[in-house]
């Protein structure tokens, strides 16, 4: 009997120790990023790494003063916000249609929308580049606002469909019987009821737009450069300025981390597009 109690305790301790190892492995690399960003150039380049040093904000000041970091930040904000707005409008309408109305081909359309999400962006980037060039949209935020719909819209349609399905159908049906039109049943009843889910969808959409790199690399050149592309600009042929690059990286992560914590409850559902709760 005694032995069993001891064994359970040992097992528990081992499990906790393993969990601690997992979290150290996850947290250590981003911590190195943060520490490097608040070191002077001399401290950052010293080896072995310094653990005790005088922290400084000079890297942050420098990227705002001497590089167009503010512009990158604004571009990222504009692209991600406008894209999220478009995704929420188009996506909620389509998701509502797929969740509520019965019509032939609904499953095939939903499946087709899902398959768009699987497409590797490289597969479409050459024609998209040519089309954007001919429309004179290269190096404008508009090209990114439009193109980010390719991956965000299918994601949002699937996720929101699962949120709409959780609302009991009867509420809308009674409204329809009372003479409410389909569109006002959607706007006045379904939309408010699904609002928490839609907010989560919007936040995830924003994060995906904020993080996107490949399209931004190819479709922008100087004026519309977004944060991820801007930060990689600190990698030069002559070498990397670690201070600027890590400071830029930390600033790019701040909104992502805040949003992630906000949306945590829906994250599993969000990342699997509604397949796992």
């Amino acid at each position, binding site marked *: 009997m005694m032995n069993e109690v001891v064994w359970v305790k040992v097992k528990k301790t081992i499990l906790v120790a393993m*969990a601690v190892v*997992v*979290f150290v492995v*996850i947290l250590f*690399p*981003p911590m*190195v990023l943060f520490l490097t960003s608040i070191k002077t150039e001399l401290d*950052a380049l010293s*080896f072995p*790494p310094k653990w005790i040093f005088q922290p400084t904000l000079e890297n942050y000041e420098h990227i705002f003063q001497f590089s167009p970091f503010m512009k990158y930040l604004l571009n990222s904000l504009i692209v991600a916000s406008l894209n999220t707005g478009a995704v929420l409008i*188009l*996506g909620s309408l*389509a998701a509502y*249609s*797929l969740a509520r109305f019965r019509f032939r081909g*609904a*499953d095939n359309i939903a499946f087709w*929308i899902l*398959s*768009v*999400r*699987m497409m*590797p*962006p*490289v*597969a*479409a*980037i*050459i*024609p*998209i580049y*040519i089309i954007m060039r001919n429309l004179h949209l290269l190096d404008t935020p508009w090209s990114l606002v439009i193109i980010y719909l*390719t991956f965000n819209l*299918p994601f949002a*349609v699937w996720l929101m469909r699962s949120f709409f399905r959780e609302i009991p159908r009867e509420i809308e049906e009674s409204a329809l019987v009372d003479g409410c039109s389909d569109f006002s049943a959607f706007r006045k009843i379904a939309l408010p009821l699904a609002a928490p889910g839609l907010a989560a969808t919007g936040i995830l959409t924003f994060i995906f737009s904020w*993080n996107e*790199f*490949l399209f931004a*690399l*190819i479709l922008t050149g100087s004026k519309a450069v977004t*944060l*991820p592309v801007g*930060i*990689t600009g600190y990698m030069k042929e002559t070498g990397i300025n*670690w201070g600027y*690059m*890590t400071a830029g*990286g930390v600033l*790019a*992560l701040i909104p*992502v*981390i805040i*949003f992630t914590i906000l949306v*945590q409850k829906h*994250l*599993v559902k969000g*990342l*699997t597009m509604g*397949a*796992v709760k």
Partner: protein
Amino acid sequence: MELGRKVGHFFCLLKRKYVWLFFLAPAVAVLISIVVFPLAFSLILSFYDWNIIRAGGWSWAGINNYRTILFQDPYFRSSFKVTLFYLAGTVSVQFGLGLVVALILDQITRKIIGFLRTVLVLPITMTPVVVGIIWRLMYNPDLGMLNYFLSWLGFSPVNWTGMPGTALPSVMMADIWEWTPFVALILLAGLQSLPREPYEAALVDGASSWQTFCYITFPLLSPAMLVVLLIRVMDSFKTFDLIFVLTQGGPGMSTEILNYYTYRYGFKFFHLGYASALSWVLLVVVTIICMILIRMLQSRGIYAKRT
């Protein structure tokens, strides 16, 4: 008058029957114009030779681009091998490690789950370019943490991303760091939603914990496992940011997966016809693999028809 009412009635019926279309059409129209149309365009382009920086327009090449890719291009073959190796290596390790982490956390988290989840979630939503920067910093041969730890243990420094032998495993390790938490998070959610009754029955019947895992946990968790596999496989083909920041495909072509190879053909060499053909080959490969996984999922009722 009579006619007017009939027409009005007709439109009313039409509206009732096709109201779904008004909701669905905008999104579908957008997707057709930004996905289907470009893909059709690139399919046509893939049968032509077109170098955007050289003078002269498109010239008909027939199936030459595809023939070259499949039978003559040694770089395609090496890139294909790198892709398969990358895919198999990262996804299997992420899956195994993620499952172990999920099982550990399922045993202990109940009280502190909020904090643990937040930590687990960080790498998943982090900007991938920044993940690349973090790991480039870690791998740096002169001042990186990894070589610092190696020096503790008495090993000589390694040029992680600079040598053909270690570059690919280095990129894969960063990928594994980034995505194992994703697998763990989804599987943990799956584990926590499992019914309790089978476990109680197993306990009564005196099943060992290994038997419980094999005959109860594993089958019950398999839908969540398949979802994770599908998402990881399809996203793995898209890996670009990490490679761009860490190695740019090098040294040589040692880290150049198909995705990156296609990008380089299009936007470094400007052979747009050939790159389009490459992108279609990639698309077909991804589609076949994903379809197999999706069929498996649908037979279990996930991503499937409404019930």
